[in-house]
Every structure is written in structure tokens, then in C-alpha cells.
């Protein structure tokens, strides 16, 4: 299968220099990781293993000290270390943050409109000098949002489209964050603990969203602590500990690995 993202020998030290002393241990120590297209890949590991740091580096919020990140959405391979986060997103990499991160001053609809990533119509005065195109685009974006919500059979969200996002529950805000990734025309999405704070009862909509992503050809890479979820949906697993990938492979193999059972699953 084609690899959409290839990470080679990635190092990151928040101390600045690469000194492997007892005090300044790098957060990432030579991470190698491949994400295959149209696949669900998970990254598991204890707290402080460097999982979120890895996502932040892929996204461009942090720059690596050493190593390569190759991104290949189509035929052409792009090296994406040290590219600004907004440019990385425009290349087709979406991100779900830990916790909820919505625009609290805006309504649900406005949040989803921003998620549609129609960059062209956001120029100042665009709705004046090109109002027909603007109105067309706005209408098609609204239709897209409503069609998607209808498809997900989420009546609650449809009814609260014009409410402020802050009035919604945590789980609903989280679901809006996830839905946003379906609207933005991404090739690869990085999810940081998507199930945290969501009840097992709400997993249904989760499953629907993940299926929608698969249908849309979006590759998913996620950090997850919920092993039930990983067992159920994930095909490939990477186990990370103190900045190193220790075990990788098929989900079943990884989860039945004696060292992971002893070190991680016993606590988790």
C-alpha cells in the first residue's frame, strides 16, 4: 500500500541542543513511522511519551531538530519539516486537538463555515466586489453542512446550527470538531485522543464519522488511550515510550505484545 506520510529518524529536544544527558533528554529520539493511505493508524503510549509533540511537529507547530517528514498525498512527495502550520493544513493535513477547540464567539454554523476551507471568499470586501460568487459559495457551503449533518442523522446539531457553540455540551462540541474535518477536504487527519470525554453510548456517531472519512478517502492517524476503541477500529498500531517507537505492527500483535501488556496496558 502507498504511504501517505513517512517519518524518518525524527529528533526533538525542547532544551534546544541535542545533548543526551540525564537532565536534557530529548522528547523524540529517532522516531520512524509510516502511515499508509486509507488506513487507520494509531499511536499509543503512556503520558509524556511524546505523542502530542509528534503531532505538533507533523502539523508544523514545532520544528524538528533532525529528521524528515515526507508527505505524499498524490504522486508528488513533499518534505514538510519546517513548513508553517497554515501551509501544512492547505496541503491537506487536518488536526483535531486534545480537548475542545472551537471558536467560542461564533455559532455552530459559522464554525462549520470556517471549517469548509473556502479560502478565496475570505478576502476583505469580497462580498462587495464579487457578491454573486460570494453568495453562491456561501449557499453551497451551507448546503454542504446541512447535507452532512443530515447524513450523520444528527438532529440535535441541525437544530442548534444557529446557537453559540458554547451552549453545547462537551461531547457535542467534540463532535463538531470532528465533523469539521469532514468538511475541509483533507487527505490525512491527525486526531489527538478523539474519544476522550465521549461516552461509550455516543460512539455510534463516532463510528459513522469514521466511516464517512473512509468513504471520502481520508487517512486517519490517531492518538488513543481507549484500547477498546483501538481494538475495534484500528488496523496498524505504534507503541511509543520515552520518545521512541518500541513496537509496531498489526493491532492485535501490538496489543498482545508481552512488554506492552506489562508496561502500558496494566496501567491503562
Amino acid at each position: 500500500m502507498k504511504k501517505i506520510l513517512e517519518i524518518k529518524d525524527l529528533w526533538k529536544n525542547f532544551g534546544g541542543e541535542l545533548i543526551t544527558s540525564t537532565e536534557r533528554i530529548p522528547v523524540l529520539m529517532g522516531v520512524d513511522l509510516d502511515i499508509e493511505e486509507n488506513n487507520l493508524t494509531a499511536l499509543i503510549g503512556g503520558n509524556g511519551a511524546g505523542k502530542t509533540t509528534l503531532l505538533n511537529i507533523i502539523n508544523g507547530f514545532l520544528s524538528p531538530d533532525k529528521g524528515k517528514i515526507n508527505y505524499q498525498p498524490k504522486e508528488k512527495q513533499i518534505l514538510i519539516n519546517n513548513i508553517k502550520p497554515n501551509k501544512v493544513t492547505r496541503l491537506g493535513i487536518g488536526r483535531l486537538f486534545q480537548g475542545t477547540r472551537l471558536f467560542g464567539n461564533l455559532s455552530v454554523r459559522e464554525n462549520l463555515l470556517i471549517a469548509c476551507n473556502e479560502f478565496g471568499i475570505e478576502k476583505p470586501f469580497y462580498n462587495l466586489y464579487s457578491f454573486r460568487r460570494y453568495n453562491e459559495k456561501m449557499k453551497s457551503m451551507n448546503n454542504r453542512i446541512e447535507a452532512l449533518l443530515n447524513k450523520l442523522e444528527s438532529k440535535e446539531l441541525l437544530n442548534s446550527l444557529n446557537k453559540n457553540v458554547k451552549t453545547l455540551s462537551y461531547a457535542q462540541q467534540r463532535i463538531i470538531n470532528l465533523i469539521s474535518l469532514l468538511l475541509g477536504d483533507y487527505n490525512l487527519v491527525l486526531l489527538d485522543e478523539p474519544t476522550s470525554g465521549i461516552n461509550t453510548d455516543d460512539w455510534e456517531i463516532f463510528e459513522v464519522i469514521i466511516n464517512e472519512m473512509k468513504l471520502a478517502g481520508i487517512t486517519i492517524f490517531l492518538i488513543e488511550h481507549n484500547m477498546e476503541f483501538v481494538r475495534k477500529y484500528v488496523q496498524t498500531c505504534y507503541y511509543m515510550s520515552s520518545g521512541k517507537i518500541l513496537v509496531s505492527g498489526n493491532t492485535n500483535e501490538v496489543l498482545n505484545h508481552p512488554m506492552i501488556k506489562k508496561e502500558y496496558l496494566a496501567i491503562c
Partner: protein
Amino acid sequence: MLNYILNIGNFALIYIILAVSSHLLVRVANQISLGQAAFFGLGAYITALCTVVLDLPLIPSLIIVMTINGLLAYLIAIPSVKLKGDYFVIATLAFQFIVYSVLYNWKSVTGGSDGISGITFPNIFFAKIVSEQFVFFIINIILTIILMFLFFKLQYSMFGKILKALQDDEISLLAVGRDTKKFKISVFVISSAFIGWASYLYATYMTYIDPNSFNIHESIFILIAVLLGGTEKMRGAVLGALFMVLLPEILRFIQIPDMIAAALNQIILGVLLLVIVFFRGNRMFSIKEE
């Protein structure tokens, strides 16, 4: 009496232009700027250049004032937008003081503390039939309505939505592919360019300008006008500006000695500012924790 009302009306409209153009920057994008009077002043001096030296009519002068103000704002914005919250305020404050000192000390060009006089409103045909002040008032109203329309359209477009999102969460905006710096620079430039309209109207109406009309107090005055409205809707800025202009006049009407009235004006504004800071304080100078 009519002249008195027209006079107040003209001032009110000029301050509405100032408040509405600052509103987008301060309220919608949450970029508190204490340099608005600097752009107001720069625009006024460029107006003087256009009318006294170059003798240009209304529209070319407006375009020149907007362009120069916009360009300067662009240069100022590039380094300042890297700063957040209070630090951005300090950067704009510094700009305010620099502009004031230049206007005050560059005597050969700006006339220093003597200012520039003899700025004339371009001759308009109707001015001979009705009073010049009335014609000015009409032009003032037309410009104010156009400006309010433009800023209304800006605020309720996708551009405005992004600005509103900007004050919530910059990291998330970056993560959905928006260049937050570009948006901050745009809003700063637009706001400063349109302040040029107020400069033009002010300079031609007063026919005389001096640096003291554009000092830090003026910036604070504009900022209070914007914040007084207490709402993100544009009418907040309009009402705030009206209040600020009308308050001294109202105090003049209620038959109290001038000395007390002037002090009372300051006291009322001071108390109002305290109330704003007390109730809306954490929104006024907020940096989102990351």
C-alpha cells in the same frame, strides 16, 4: 441655532467615522490600538498637503489620504502583529508618540506647534446657494453612510467571521489553514485607511490643524467611544461616538458653571471607563491562555 446644531452634527459624524473604523479593529478583531489618533493626525496633515499645496478636489484627496495612511499602517502592522494583547497596545502607543513628536518638532513641514491653517474645503457649486456648513454636513452624512455600509459588509462577511474567530483561538485558525498574521495586518490597514476619511473631514472643516488635536488623549477618546457601546454590533460604536460628542454639550445646557462642567465631563468619562474595565475588563485586554 441651526449653525450650532450643524456644528455638533458635523463633529458627531466625524467621530462616528473614527469609531466605526476603529470598531472593526478593536471590537471585532480584539486588537486594542492606542494609535488611532496618530493615523487621524497623519491623515489630517496629508489633507493639508492635498488641499493647500496641491489644491486637489474631494475624491482624489480622499484616495491619497487613504493610500498613505494604509501604507504606513502596513509598515507599522508587520512588526506589531507579532505581539499579542497588551504588548500590541504598547506598540501602537509608541507609534502614537512618535507621530506626535514628529508633527510637533518637524517645524519646516508641519509648522510645529503653530500647526497649519488655511485648509479649505474644495469649492462646491451649491455652497453659493445654501450655507457652506450645510453642504459640508450633507457630504459628511453621505461619507458616513458609505463608510458604515462598507464596514457593515466587512463585519458580516467571511472576513469578519475570521476576525471574530481570531480573538478566540489563533492556534485553531492556523490549524485550519488561515494565515492569522495576514488577517491582522489587513484589518489594521483597513481601519487606518478609513480613518483618513475622518481626517479629511476634520481638517477641511476646522480649516486649521495642530499636533495637540492628535495626541494620546484623542486616541483614548476614540477607544472609549468604541468600548462604551458595550456590544459587538456596529451600533455600539455609533452610539458611543454620539455620546462622547454630545456629553459636553448636554453638560453645557444644564446651567452649571463652565469650570465644573469641564471637570464633570472628565469625571463622567473616568467613571464610565472604570465601569467598562470592571465589567468587561477581562475582555478588554485579554490574551487567550494557551
